[in-house]
């Protein structure tokens, strides 16, 4: 088991966050390339800040609904935030090239609602930099996003899959 003693913080300005909603009626996907993230290799602290209006949908109307008051209310809540820690930091060596399995535990804040979250991911270290990849599920009602009637209630899944990848370099 390798223990890292790096004091430096790593910053990612290059990322891709995708969410996927699947129902028998419709598959909906949105992509965001503007999240900023930091990983502190000495403490395992991970932070993601996601500008919500940067989510791009195939259909313009869907994007407008997503941003609107009944869904994410992005004018009032322009950013989502993920804060937590790599819980198996001892198993990740940020100084040695290789691929490591990471576990994450923390809190996600979307639309002003904060919920606990755990996720597994893959950290690929190469030449002093690394990338982080992870996939996890989010339940929309946990964040106060619920549809009782109309098209969104049948066409938007109750649980959506989030995939993220981010590339980090030393600050």
């Amino acid at each position, binding site marked *: 088991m390798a223990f890292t003693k790096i004091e430096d913080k790593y910053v990612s300005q290059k990322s*891709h966050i995708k969410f996927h909603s699947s129902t028998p009626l419709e598959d909906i996907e949105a*992509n965001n*390339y503007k999240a900023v993230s*930091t990983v502190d290799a000495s403490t395992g602290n991970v932070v993601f800040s996601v500008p919500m209006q*940067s989510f791009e949908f195939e*259909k*313009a109307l869907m994007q407008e609904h*997503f941003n609107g008051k009944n869904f994410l209310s992005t004018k009032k809540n322009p950013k989502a935030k993920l804060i937590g820690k790599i819980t198996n930091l001892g198993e990740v060596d940020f100084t040695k090239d290789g691929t490591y399995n990471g576990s994450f535990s923390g809190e996600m804040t979307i639309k002003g609602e904060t919920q606990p979250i755990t996720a597994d991911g893959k950290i690929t270290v190469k030449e002093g930099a690394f990338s982080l990849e992870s996939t996890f599920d989010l339940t929309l009602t946990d964040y106060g996003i619920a549809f009782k009637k109309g098209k969104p209630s049948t066409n938007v899944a109750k649980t959506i899959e989030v995939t993220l990848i981010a590339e980090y370099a030393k600050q």
Partner: protein
Amino acid sequence: MNKKKKKLILLVVIVGMTVAASIAAFMFFKPHRDVQSARTDLVISANEYLSSADQANEKYLDEAGLSKILEVNGLVHSITEDYNNQMVVLIKSPGADAGVSCTFTIETNASAEALKVGQLVRIKGVIRSGAAYDEDLGLFEHVILDKSDVIK
């Protein structure tokens, strides 16, 4: 009800349904806003903008995501590429805490590629988020402009 009247009602119903379906289809398939051909809401320098960043989200973001279209003047600090093969030009003055991160599109990438670091430039795009210091990140986050292109 006579036959003629029935026919008329049927016709009105069919026309009505067709119009409703057309409107619904138009709404459902309506294209994204073309930021580059849309009117610019505000021309501003990166520094001028950043001094009022705290109010930016309230002032410039729109409830349906159809936020303000800005033209920002400033110096090119870096030119990179994102995971979607779109060029990203950061406009930032030397010594400034934050800048304006402008993401181009596949159609406008070439104009970003032609830029040089240190060059004075004016870029038009739609604002997605204002700049602010984020305590959790321990960083200043840049203003975000999407669908950008260089204004010559």
